[in-house]
């Protein structure tokens, strides 16, 4: 098993989970999308989950090698930015129907940190391998 396989596995997992969470968020439930829900997520938020999930799946299955490692780092950068912006404005300047809570912040942070770390490891692996190919 190579580090790159782990990067692919991670980003595929992130994509599947994001899409699943986004789609399930649309299913009518008396506790979802209402103000009295513990952690309500509006339709815009669900769409963003699905879109970023699709982006993650594209990285997992549409890229490879060093390109994939860089893309996984990029995904981490994207979620780091989302984490910071949503932390600063939990309703995203009034565009989210409901305030983001601690669970969502934790998901954003986890996606950012883990993607950056996994991408960085995969990148180092490939960069080292390419260097050794060049010197050989």
């Amino acid at each position, binding site marked *: *098993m*190579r*580090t*790159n396989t*782990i990067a692919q596995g*991670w980003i595929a*997992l*992130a994509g599947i*989970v*994001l899409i*699943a*969470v986004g789609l*399930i968020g649309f299913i009518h*439930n008396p*506790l*979802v999308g209402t103000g009295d*829900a*513990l*952690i309500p*997520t509006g*339709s*815009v938020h669900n*769409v*963003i989950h699905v*879109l*970023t999930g699709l*982006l993650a799946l594209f*990285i997992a299955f549409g890229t*490879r*090698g*060093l*390109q994939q490692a*860089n*893309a996984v*780092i*990029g*995904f981490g*950068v*994207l979620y780091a*930015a*989302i984490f910071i912006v949503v932390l600063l404005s939990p309703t995203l300047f009034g*565009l989210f129907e409901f305030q983001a809570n601690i*669970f969502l912040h*934790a*998901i954003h942070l*986890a996606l950012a*940190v*883990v*993607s950056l*770390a*996994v991408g960085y*490891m*995969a990148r*180092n692996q*490939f960069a*080292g*391998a*390419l260097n*050794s*190919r060049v010197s050989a």
Partner: protein
Amino acid sequence: MSDHAFIEALAFVVLLGGGLIAMGVGAVVRDRAPTQVSPSSAGASISVGSTRRVAWVTVAFASIGAGIIHLALGPSHLDAIGVLGLGFFVVGAAQLIWAALALHRPSHLLAWLGIGGNVAVLAAWAFTRTVGLPVGPDAWTPEAIGWADSVAGLFELLVITVLLIDVSGLQVRSTHLRAVAGTVASIGVVPIVGGIMVLTALALASGEPGHDRVAASLIVSVRYLRGRLR
């Protein structure tokens, strides 16, 4: 705990748990496993240096975002200003077609078409925000600047800027700087494309001054077309 809270919590646990396992396994494998690079992987890595390709992917997605926003805004403008509102559909469709061509076969001509088209659209936007439209119930009254049109304008500005750099043939002479630029571009394209997707979704959900919510205007569009067909 609500169902949704449970799903979010579960997603968090899976993501964090999966990530920690992936990191742990990766750290172990990295030290133990012999380095393997298949020729195909090496080939893919070389293509990472194609900063130009990354630039075209970025402008294509920006154009798609702007096109979707224009198409979504069309119906409410059709209601407000009549036939002139068709311009939104024309511009939106043109931006989507241009994006498809940009992804498929970037060229110098396409770059100039993109620059010219987007400058024209931005100029029209600036005119309506400073002078106002010559027709409609609020003729010659400057429209308010909203989220959706700001985001579309931002995308168009991005397209113009990147394409101008591309057609200018700007080259970094230093090999080291070129390599760094290639790496930054290949990492940066994901947050940029992701940001475009997120901003487009937010723009579609935003309240547009003087119009219905953009997403809701799609419903107006369907009703309008049904009314016309009858």
